[in-house]
């Protein structure tokens, strides 16, 4: 395991804007539990806060005159205008969207909705989403290839899985969330996929 750092630990002698860190008096400190990897700080924990341009997966929790409210695995909700969708969405529907704008109090305006009616929804720590995706999407490709599942990953930590070996896909996502801080993750995931998908098909 890489060196673990804690709130208050010095990260840099100068001000640097890094996720999971804060600056004070010209220096940068860790704000959450994180791993120090060479020059990188990889947070282990942290709530999702909506950011413009990100793809998220949300759950419809309310319908109002002008649109839908989506829960985003975050303290902040998303707002999807009825103009964005020709389809009628039901309460509880799982929808992938893009964040068009975020206002002063962090409420997100959502666009380009893609309902995922058949999907199983898995929740993971939002800061660990990059590990599920992997470098240039490599991890996600491997998982989709072996499971034959369609996996939609929201930056907010909601992962929608449909088709193929959904049980295996869910297990792998949970494994990544649990073990992302232990070196050798890619190898272990590949081994699990080969072993388990082999079990099923042969």
């Amino acid at each position, binding site marked *: 395991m890489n060196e673990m750092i804690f709130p*208050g630990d010095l990260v840099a002698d100068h001000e640097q804007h890094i996720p*999971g860190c*804060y600056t004070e008096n010209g220096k940068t*400190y860790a704000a*959450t539990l994180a791993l120090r990897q060479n020059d990188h700080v990889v947070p282990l924990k942290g709530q999702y*806060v909506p950011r413009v341009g990100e793809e998220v997966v949300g759950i419809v929790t309310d319908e109002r005159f002008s649109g839908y409210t989506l829960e985003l695995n975050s*303290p*902040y909700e998303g707002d999807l205008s009825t103009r964005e969708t020709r389809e009628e969405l039901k309460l509880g529907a799982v929808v992938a969207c893009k964040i068009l704008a975020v206002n002063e109090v962090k409420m997100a305006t959502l666009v380009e909705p893609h309902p995922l009616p058949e999907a199983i929804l898995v929740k993971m720590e939002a800061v660990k989403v990059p590990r599920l995706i992997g470098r240039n999407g490599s991890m996600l490709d491997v998982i989709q290839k072996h499971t034959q599942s369609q996996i939609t990953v929201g930056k907010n930590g909601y992962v929608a899985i449909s088709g193929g070996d959904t049980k295996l896909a869910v297990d792998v996502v949970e494994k990544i969330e649990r*073990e992302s801080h*232990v070196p050798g993750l890619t190898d272990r995931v590949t081994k699990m996929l080969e072993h388990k998908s082999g079990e099923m098909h042969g």
Partner: protein
Amino acid sequence: MVEKEDLFKNGKRWDGRTPTDLRTPLAITAGVLKRAQGSAMIEWGKNKVLAAVYGPREVFPKHLADPAKAIINARYIMAPFSGLDDHGRSGPNRRSIEISKVAKHVFENAILVEQFPKTMIDVYMEVLQSDGGTRVSAITAASVALADAGIPMRDLPVGMSAGKVGDAMLLDLDKYEDNLGDSDIPTVILPRTGEILLSQMDGMLSKKDVNDAFDLMFENAKFVREKQLQALRDRYEKVEAQVQGENA
């Protein structure tokens, strides 16, 4: 039954500690509750306190929401069976309401509340067994629960107490030293900046006494901080050990 004369004799305290010894055990475990977003259990001497954190989440009641920052709801409370004396009354009393208020101020300082406008962070501290110094035990545990929950913070606040028994300044008072002694100085320190976030002393103390007490507490805060960090590290190291076991 411990009497006042027994508290400090020939350089030793009634339980065998030196003036600068912390109580044992001082054990913190992070992530002890499944449902809470972050949690920690502390055993400090005979104290047992459970802390849990929820949030940031929607503010309840809604009108309390602050568009500039997250508001903190801190609740320190003692279970009616926690003390050695009679069955206490359930629910908050005047003492616990005051402690909850100053604990809230500690977390308002440590948490980067500006990152989460219009939300609320709940910090619950339940004293299950009490033996003196419960508020500082509770805040020490709650700091770990907050880190475990992924709430961004400037540092982990460390709770400490000291107090005078006769002429001796003693670190980390237990129940008898607190009740029968001459003063009690519960303090919360932010180790990185050396700021005092909570100070609620009673007793009759000179300026020198106060500074002696602070010296003792600041000196030993590092040790408590290390226990906090180890609790958090353990959570991740446990998974690592397990993974290595599976792959061995």
